[in-house]
Protein backbone atom coordinates (compact mmCIF):
# COMPACT_ATOMS: atom_id res chain seq x y z
CA UNK A 1 0.00 0.00 0.00
CA UNK A 2 2.64 2.48 1.07
CA UNK A 3 4.80 1.45 -1.83
CA UNK A 4 2.12 1.92 -4.45
CA UNK A 5 1.18 5.22 -2.79
CA UNK A 6 4.75 6.45 -3.20
CA UNK A 7 4.73 5.20 -6.78
CA UNK A 8 1.57 7.16 -7.63
CA UNK A 9 3.10 10.26 -6.05
CA UNK A 10 6.52 10.09 -7.69
CA UNK A 11 5.33 9.19 -11.19
CA UNK A 12 4.13 12.78 -11.57
CA UNK A 13 7.61 14.07 -10.81
CA UNK A 14 9.37 12.31 -13.66
CA UNK A 15 7.76 9.43 -15.59
CA UNK A 16 4.53 11.33 -16.23
CA UNK A 17 5.77 14.90 -15.75
CA UNK A 18 2.85 16.73 -17.39
CA UNK A 19 4.31 19.33 -19.80
CA UNK A 20 7.55 17.51 -20.63
CA UNK A 21 6.79 13.78 -20.61
CA UNK A 22 3.10 13.80 -21.50
CA UNK A 23 3.24 17.16 -23.35
CA UNK A 24 -0.15 18.09 -21.90
CA UNK A 25 -1.57 21.41 -20.69
CA UNK A 26 0.67 23.50 -22.89
CA UNK A 27 -1.60 26.56 -23.04
CA UNK A 28 -0.76 27.87 -19.54
CA UNK A 29 2.77 26.46 -19.78
CA UNK A 30 3.58 28.62 -22.78
CA UNK A 31 1.53 31.64 -21.82
CA UNK A 32 2.37 32.40 -18.19
CA UNK A 33 6.01 31.34 -17.80
CA UNK A 34 7.48 34.79 -18.39
CA UNK A 35 8.81 34.76 -14.83
CA UNK A 36 9.40 32.08 -12.19
CA UNK A 37 6.83 33.80 -9.98
CA UNK A 38 4.07 33.49 -12.56
CA UNK A 39 5.00 29.84 -13.13
CA UNK A 40 4.86 29.01 -9.42
CA UNK A 41 1.58 30.89 -8.95
CA UNK A 42 -0.05 29.07 -11.86
CA UNK A 43 1.39 25.74 -10.69
CA UNK A 44 0.14 26.13 -7.11
CA UNK A 45 -3.33 27.13 -8.32
CA UNK A 46 -3.48 24.11 -10.64
CA UNK A 47 -2.19 21.79 -7.89
CA UNK A 48 -4.94 22.95 -5.52
CA UNK A 49 -7.58 22.27 -8.17
CA UNK A 50 -6.04 18.90 -9.08
CA UNK A 51 -5.86 17.61 -5.50
CA UNK A 52 -9.39 18.63 -4.55
CA UNK A 53 -11.05 17.62 -7.81
CA UNK A 54 -9.25 14.25 -7.64
CA UNK A 55 -10.44 13.78 -4.05
CA UNK A 56 -14.05 14.59 -4.87
CA UNK A 57 -14.19 12.60 -8.08
CA UNK A 58 -12.73 9.63 -6.23
CA UNK A 59 -15.21 9.95 -3.34
CA UNK A 60 -18.15 10.21 -5.72
CA UNK A 61 -16.90 7.61 -8.22
CA UNK A 62 -19.62 5.10 -7.34
CA UNK A 63 -22.42 7.67 -7.28
CA UNK A 64 -21.75 9.55 -10.54
CA UNK A 65 -23.68 7.91 -13.40
CA UNK A 66 -21.24 6.97 -16.21
CA UNK A 67 -23.25 8.76 -18.90
CA UNK A 68 -22.96 12.20 -17.30
CA UNK A 69 -19.55 11.72 -15.69
CA UNK A 70 -17.75 14.37 -17.77
CA UNK A 71 -20.41 16.96 -16.90
CA UNK A 72 -20.06 16.07 -13.22
CA UNK A 73 -16.26 16.32 -13.36
CA UNK A 74 -16.46 19.73 -15.03
CA UNK A 75 -18.85 21.00 -12.34
CA UNK A 76 -16.45 19.83 -9.61
CA UNK A 77 -13.38 21.27 -11.37
CA UNK A 78 -15.05 24.58 -12.21
CA UNK A 79 -16.13 24.99 -8.58
CA UNK A 80 -12.57 24.65 -7.29
CA UNK A 81 -11.20 26.91 -10.03
CA UNK A 82 -13.67 29.63 -9.05
CA UNK A 83 -12.65 29.23 -5.40
CA UNK A 84 -8.99 29.64 -6.40
CA UNK A 85 -9.86 32.69 -8.46
CA UNK A 86 -11.71 34.38 -5.60
CA UNK A 87 -9.02 33.55 -3.04
CA UNK A 88 -6.27 34.82 -5.33
CA UNK A 89 -8.19 38.06 -5.86
CA UNK A 90 -8.53 38.46 -2.11
CA UNK A 91 -4.94 37.71 -1.11
CA UNK A 92 -2.54 37.88 -4.09
CA UNK A 93 -4.15 40.52 -6.28
CA UNK A 94 -1.04 41.57 -8.30
CA UNK A 95 -0.36 37.94 -9.23
CA UNK A 96 -4.04 37.50 -10.12
CA UNK A 97 -3.74 40.46 -12.52
CA UNK A 98 -0.64 38.97 -14.16
CA UNK A 99 -2.16 35.52 -14.64
CA UNK A 100 -5.49 37.04 -15.68
CA UNK A 101 -7.56 34.91 -18.01
CA UNK A 102 -5.37 31.82 -17.47
CA UNK A 103 -6.76 31.20 -13.97
CA UNK A 104 -10.36 30.55 -15.15
CA UNK A 105 -8.89 28.56 -18.04
CA UNK A 106 -7.63 25.91 -15.57
CA UNK A 107 -11.17 24.49 -15.96
CA UNK A 108 -10.31 23.29 -19.46
CA UNK A 109 -6.74 22.27 -18.63
CA UNK A 110 -6.60 18.71 -19.96
CA UNK A 111 -4.30 17.61 -17.14
CA UNK A 112 -7.02 18.20 -14.52
CA UNK A 113 -9.82 16.50 -16.46
CA UNK A 114 -7.38 13.81 -17.59
CA UNK A 115 -6.44 12.85 -14.01
CA UNK A 116 -10.11 12.83 -12.97
CA UNK A 117 -11.10 10.56 -15.85
CA UNK A 118 -8.04 8.32 -16.07
CA UNK A 119 -7.10 7.97 -12.42
CA UNK A 120 -9.39 9.40 -9.74
CA UNK A 121 -12.56 7.76 -11.08
CA UNK A 122 -10.92 4.31 -10.74
CA UNK A 123 -8.99 4.60 -7.47
CA UNK A 124 -9.62 5.26 -3.78
CA UNK A 125 -9.39 8.80 -2.34
CA UNK A 126 -5.94 8.41 -0.74
CA UNK A 127 -4.41 7.23 -4.01
CA UNK A 128 -6.24 10.02 -5.86
CA UNK A 129 -4.76 12.67 -3.57
CA UNK A 130 -1.27 11.21 -3.97
CA UNK A 131 -1.70 11.24 -7.73
CA UNK A 132 -3.02 14.81 -7.75
CA UNK A 133 -0.22 16.06 -5.50
CA UNK A 134 2.47 14.33 -7.55
CA UNK A 135 1.20 15.58 -10.89
CA UNK A 136 0.54 19.05 -9.45
CA UNK A 137 4.01 19.42 -7.94
CA UNK A 138 5.56 18.11 -11.16
CA UNK A 139 3.55 20.69 -13.10
CA UNK A 140 4.60 23.47 -10.72
CA UNK A 141 8.28 22.52 -10.96
CA UNK A 142 8.08 22.33 -14.77
CA UNK A 143 6.50 25.78 -14.96
CA UNK A 144 9.07 27.19 -12.54
CA UNK A 145 11.95 25.65 -14.51
CA UNK A 146 10.67 26.96 -17.83
CA UNK A 147 9.98 30.33 -16.19
CA UNK A 148 13.52 30.42 -14.80
CA UNK A 149 15.09 29.78 -18.22
CA UNK A 150 12.91 32.37 -19.94
CA UNK A 151 13.19 35.02 -17.24
CA UNK A 152 16.95 34.58 -16.86
CA UNK A 153 17.63 34.86 -20.58
CA UNK A 154 14.90 37.36 -21.36
CA UNK A 155 15.26 39.79 -18.46
CA UNK A 156 18.38 38.72 -16.56
CA UNK A 157 16.50 38.27 -13.30
CA UNK A 158 14.97 35.49 -11.20
CA UNK A 159 11.78 36.44 -9.32
CA UNK A 160 10.49 33.82 -6.89
CA UNK A 161 7.74 35.72 -5.08
CA UNK A 162 6.33 39.20 -4.48
CA UNK A 163 7.62 40.94 -7.60
CA UNK A 164 11.16 41.61 -6.32
CA UNK A 165 13.93 39.67 -8.08
CA UNK A 166 16.08 37.55 -5.76
CA UNK A 167 18.81 37.48 -8.37
CA UNK A 168 19.67 40.00 -11.03
CA UNK A 169 22.44 40.09 -13.62
CA UNK A 170 24.70 43.18 -13.59
CA UNK A 171 23.56 46.24 -15.56
CA UNK A 172 25.82 45.33 -18.48
CA UNK A 173 23.74 42.17 -19.17
CA UNK A 174 22.06 42.41 -22.57
CA UNK A 175 18.58 40.94 -22.13
CA UNK A 176 17.56 38.50 -24.87
CA UNK A 177 13.98 39.77 -24.88
CA UNK A 178 12.91 37.25 -27.54
CA UNK A 179 12.72 34.68 -24.75
CA UNK A 180 9.92 36.46 -22.87
CA UNK A 181 7.87 36.87 -26.05
CA UNK A 182 5.43 34.15 -27.17
CA UNK A 183 7.77 32.54 -29.78
CA UNK A 184 10.51 32.31 -27.15
CA UNK A 185 8.19 30.12 -25.09
CA UNK A 186 8.06 27.53 -27.89
CA UNK A 187 11.83 27.61 -28.38
CA UNK A 188 12.56 27.27 -24.66
CA UNK A 189 10.01 24.47 -24.26
CA UNK A 190 11.39 22.65 -27.30
CA UNK A 191 14.97 22.85 -26.06
CA UNK A 192 13.97 21.65 -22.58
CA UNK A 193 11.95 18.78 -24.09
CA UNK A 194 14.99 17.77 -26.15
CA UNK A 195 17.18 17.76 -23.03
CA UNK A 196 14.62 15.70 -21.08
CA UNK A 197 14.37 13.18 -23.90
CA UNK A 198 18.15 12.96 -24.12
CA UNK A 199 18.35 12.13 -20.40
CA UNK A 200 15.35 9.82 -20.59
CA UNK A 201 16.65 7.82 -23.55
CA UNK A 202 19.83 6.70 -21.80
Amino acid at each position, binding site marked *: MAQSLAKEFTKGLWAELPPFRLVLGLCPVLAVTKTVENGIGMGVATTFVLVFSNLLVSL*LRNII*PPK*VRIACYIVIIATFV*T*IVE*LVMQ*AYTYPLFLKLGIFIPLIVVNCIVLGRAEAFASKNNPVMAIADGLGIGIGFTLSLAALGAVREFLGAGTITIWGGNPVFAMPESFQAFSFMVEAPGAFVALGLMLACMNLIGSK
Partner: protein
Amino acid sequence: MREMISMIVVLTALTGIAGGLLAAVKTGTEVKIEEQVLKFQKAPAIEEIFPGATNDPIMERFNLQAGDSAVQIFPAKMADGSRAIAFETKGKGGYGGDVGLMVGIKLDNDQIVAARVTTHAETPGLGARAKDDPTFVSQFTDKPLDTNLALKSDNGSIDAMSGATITSRAVTLAAIQAQNLYKNLKPEILKQMP
Protein backbone atom coordinates in the same frame (compact mmCIF):
# COMPACT_ATOMS: atom_id res chain seq x y z
CA MET B 1 -35.78 5.07 -16.33
CA ARG B 2 -33.90 4.54 -13.05
CA GLU B 3 -30.69 5.57 -14.76
CA MET B 4 -32.32 8.72 -16.09
CA ILE B 5 -33.57 9.73 -12.64
CA SER B 6 -30.21 9.06 -11.04
CA MET B 7 -28.53 11.24 -13.69
CA ILE B 8 -30.90 14.11 -12.99
CA VAL B 9 -30.66 13.75 -9.21
CA VAL B 10 -26.85 13.54 -9.13
CA LEU B 11 -26.30 16.47 -11.48
CA THR B 12 -28.87 18.62 -9.70
CA ALA B 13 -27.44 17.84 -6.28
CA LEU B 14 -23.88 18.43 -7.46
CA THR B 15 -24.57 21.77 -9.10
CA GLY B 16 -26.72 22.85 -6.12
CA ILE B 17 -23.93 22.09 -3.63
CA ALA B 18 -21.35 23.75 -5.90
CA GLY B 19 -23.50 26.88 -6.14
CA GLY B 20 -23.94 27.05 -2.37
CA LEU B 21 -20.23 26.58 -1.75
CA LEU B 22 -19.29 29.29 -4.23
CA ALA B 23 -21.80 31.71 -2.74
CA ALA B 24 -20.23 31.12 0.68
CA VAL B 25 -16.68 31.68 -0.64
CA LYS B 26 -17.78 34.79 -2.50
CA THR B 27 -19.37 36.29 0.60
CA GLY B 28 -16.30 35.39 2.63
CA THR B 29 -13.82 37.05 0.27
CA GLU B 30 -15.95 40.03 -0.83
CA VAL B 31 -14.64 42.59 1.68
CA LYS B 32 -11.03 41.58 1.13
CA ILE B 33 -11.38 41.72 -2.67
CA GLU B 34 -12.92 45.19 -2.44
CA GLU B 35 -9.90 46.37 -0.42
CA GLN B 36 -7.53 44.90 -3.00
CA VAL B 37 -9.41 46.49 -5.91
CA LEU B 38 -9.29 49.85 -4.13
CA LYS B 39 -5.54 49.52 -3.55
CA PHE B 40 -4.44 48.11 -6.89
CA GLN B 41 -7.06 49.40 -9.37
CA LYS B 42 -8.87 52.50 -8.11
CA ALA B 43 -5.97 54.20 -6.29
CA PRO B 44 -3.57 54.10 -9.31
CA ALA B 45 -6.37 55.28 -11.62
CA ILE B 46 -7.17 58.23 -9.33
CA GLU B 47 -3.49 59.15 -9.10
CA GLU B 48 -3.36 59.31 -12.89
CA ILE B 49 -6.57 61.33 -13.14
CA PHE B 50 -5.54 63.85 -10.42
CA PRO B 51 -1.73 63.92 -10.58
CA GLY B 52 -1.51 67.21 -8.65
CA ALA B 53 -4.16 66.62 -6.00
CA THR B 54 -3.31 68.36 -2.73
CA ASN B 55 -5.48 66.05 -0.63
CA ASP B 56 -5.84 62.26 -0.43
CA PRO B 57 -8.95 61.35 -2.46
CA ILE B 58 -8.77 57.72 -1.32
CA MET B 59 -8.86 58.57 2.39
CA GLU B 60 -11.62 61.17 1.98
CA ARG B 61 -13.95 58.97 -0.08
CA PHE B 62 -17.65 58.90 0.81
CA ASN B 63 -20.70 57.01 -0.42
CA LEU B 64 -23.79 58.47 -2.05
CA GLN B 65 -27.04 56.68 -2.75
CA ALA B 66 -28.00 56.52 -6.43
CA GLY B 67 -31.13 54.53 -7.05
CA ASP B 68 -30.70 51.23 -5.19
CA SER B 69 -26.89 51.16 -5.22
CA ALA B 70 -24.23 53.18 -3.45
CA VAL B 71 -21.62 55.12 -5.44
CA GLN B 72 -18.15 55.67 -4.01
CA ILE B 73 -17.12 59.30 -4.54
CA PHE B 74 -13.46 60.34 -4.40
CA PRO B 75 -13.17 64.12 -3.79
CA ALA B 76 -9.99 65.89 -4.93
CA LYS B 77 -8.55 69.37 -4.47
CA MET B 78 -6.53 70.33 -7.54
CA ALA B 79 -3.26 72.25 -7.39
CA ASP B 80 -5.01 75.45 -8.63
CA GLY B 81 -7.54 75.27 -5.78
CA SER B 82 -10.46 74.01 -7.88
CA ARG B 83 -12.40 70.97 -6.74
CA ALA B 84 -13.16 67.77 -8.59
CA ILE B 85 -14.58 64.34 -7.92
CA ALA B 86 -13.96 60.92 -9.35
CA PHE B 87 -16.19 57.87 -9.32
CA GLU B 88 -16.36 54.53 -11.07
CA THR B 89 -19.04 53.26 -13.45
CA LYS B 90 -19.36 49.87 -15.12
CA GLY B 91 -19.81 49.68 -18.89
CA LYS B 92 -21.94 46.71 -19.91
CA GLY B 93 -21.13 44.50 -22.86
CA GLY B 94 -17.35 44.14 -22.85
CA TYR B 95 -15.80 41.00 -24.31
CA GLY B 96 -15.15 39.59 -20.83
CA GLY B 97 -17.99 41.19 -18.84
CA ASP B 98 -18.27 44.69 -17.47
CA VAL B 99 -15.52 47.25 -18.00
CA GLY B 100 -14.90 49.59 -15.07
CA LEU B 101 -14.16 53.24 -15.84
CA MET B 102 -12.98 55.80 -13.29
CA VAL B 103 -14.11 59.25 -14.40
CA GLY B 104 -12.85 62.49 -12.88
CA ILE B 105 -15.10 65.56 -13.26
CA LYS B 106 -14.36 69.18 -12.30
CA LEU B 107 -17.13 70.68 -10.17
CA ASP B 108 -16.68 74.30 -11.38
CA ASN B 109 -17.20 73.80 -15.11
CA ASP B 110 -18.53 70.20 -15.22
CA GLN B 111 -15.70 69.17 -17.54
CA ILE B 112 -14.19 65.70 -17.50
CA VAL B 113 -10.66 65.92 -16.07
CA ALA B 114 -9.62 62.47 -17.30
CA ALA B 115 -10.86 58.90 -17.37
CA ARG B 116 -9.04 55.61 -16.76
CA VAL B 117 -10.10 51.99 -17.17
CA THR B 118 -9.99 50.00 -13.91
CA THR B 119 -11.26 46.42 -13.65
CA HIS B 120 -11.77 44.50 -16.87
CA ALA B 121 -11.33 41.02 -18.35
CA GLU B 122 -10.71 42.03 -21.97
CA THR B 123 -8.37 40.20 -24.37
CA PRO B 124 -4.68 41.00 -23.75
CA GLY B 125 -3.24 43.00 -26.65
CA LEU B 126 -6.70 43.92 -28.05
CA GLY B 127 -9.39 45.13 -25.66
CA ALA B 128 -6.92 45.37 -22.78
CA ARG B 129 -5.22 48.26 -24.60
CA ALA B 130 -8.06 50.42 -23.25
CA LYS B 131 -6.24 50.18 -19.91
CA ASP B 132 -2.61 49.61 -20.95
CA ASP B 133 -2.47 52.42 -23.50
CA PRO B 134 -4.18 55.63 -22.31
CA THR B 135 -4.49 57.04 -25.86
CA PHE B 136 -8.06 55.84 -26.22
CA VAL B 137 -9.38 57.11 -22.86
CA SER B 138 -7.49 60.40 -23.27
CA GLN B 139 -10.23 61.31 -25.77
CA PHE B 140 -12.50 61.94 -22.77
CA THR B 141 -10.15 64.57 -21.31
CA ASP B 142 -11.62 68.13 -21.13
CA LYS B 143 -14.93 67.05 -22.72
CA PRO B 144 -17.86 69.16 -21.41
CA LEU B 145 -20.66 67.27 -19.73
CA ASP B 146 -23.13 67.66 -22.61
CA THR B 147 -20.83 66.05 -25.21
CA ASN B 148 -22.20 62.91 -26.85
CA LEU B 149 -19.61 60.40 -25.66
CA ALA B 150 -20.80 57.50 -27.86
CA LEU B 151 -18.55 56.02 -30.54
CA LYS B 152 -18.42 57.80 -33.92
CA SER B 153 -20.01 54.71 -35.48
CA ASP B 154 -22.88 55.22 -33.02
CA ASN B 155 -23.20 58.91 -34.05
CA GLY B 156 -21.06 60.10 -31.13
CA SER B 157 -17.67 61.78 -30.90
CA ILE B 158 -15.22 59.09 -29.74
CA ASP B 159 -12.92 57.13 -32.07
CA ALA B 160 -13.00 53.39 -31.34
CA MET B 161 -9.75 51.43 -30.90
CA SER B 162 -9.14 49.51 -34.10
CA GLY B 163 -9.75 45.80 -33.58
CA ALA B 164 -11.52 46.40 -30.28
CA THR B 165 -14.85 48.02 -31.09
CA ILE B 166 -16.77 45.99 -28.52
CA THR B 167 -14.46 47.04 -25.69
CA SER B 168 -14.50 50.63 -26.92
CA ARG B 169 -18.29 50.62 -26.88
CA ALA B 170 -18.37 49.25 -23.33
CA VAL B 171 -16.02 52.06 -22.22
CA THR B 172 -18.18 54.73 -23.87
CA LEU B 173 -21.28 53.25 -22.21
CA ALA B 174 -19.53 53.61 -18.86
CA ALA B 175 -18.66 57.24 -19.71
CA ILE B 176 -22.24 58.06 -20.71
CA GLN B 177 -23.48 56.43 -17.50
CA ALA B 178 -21.00 58.61 -15.59
CA GLN B 179 -22.41 61.75 -17.27
CA ASN B 180 -25.96 60.87 -16.25
CA LEU B 181 -24.97 59.86 -12.74
CA TYR B 182 -23.06 63.10 -12.26
CA LYS B 183 -26.05 65.19 -13.40
CA ASN B 184 -28.28 63.42 -10.86
CA LEU B 185 -25.79 63.46 -8.02
CA LYS B 186 -24.30 66.95 -8.35
CA PRO B 187 -26.59 68.65 -5.78
CA GLU B 188 -25.81 65.88 -3.29
CA ILE B 189 -22.08 66.13 -3.98
CA LEU B 190 -22.05 69.89 -3.43
CA LYS B 191 -23.84 69.33 -0.11
CA GLN B 192 -21.14 66.87 0.95
CA MET B 193 -18.27 69.11 -0.20
CA PRO B 194 -18.97 72.60 1.13
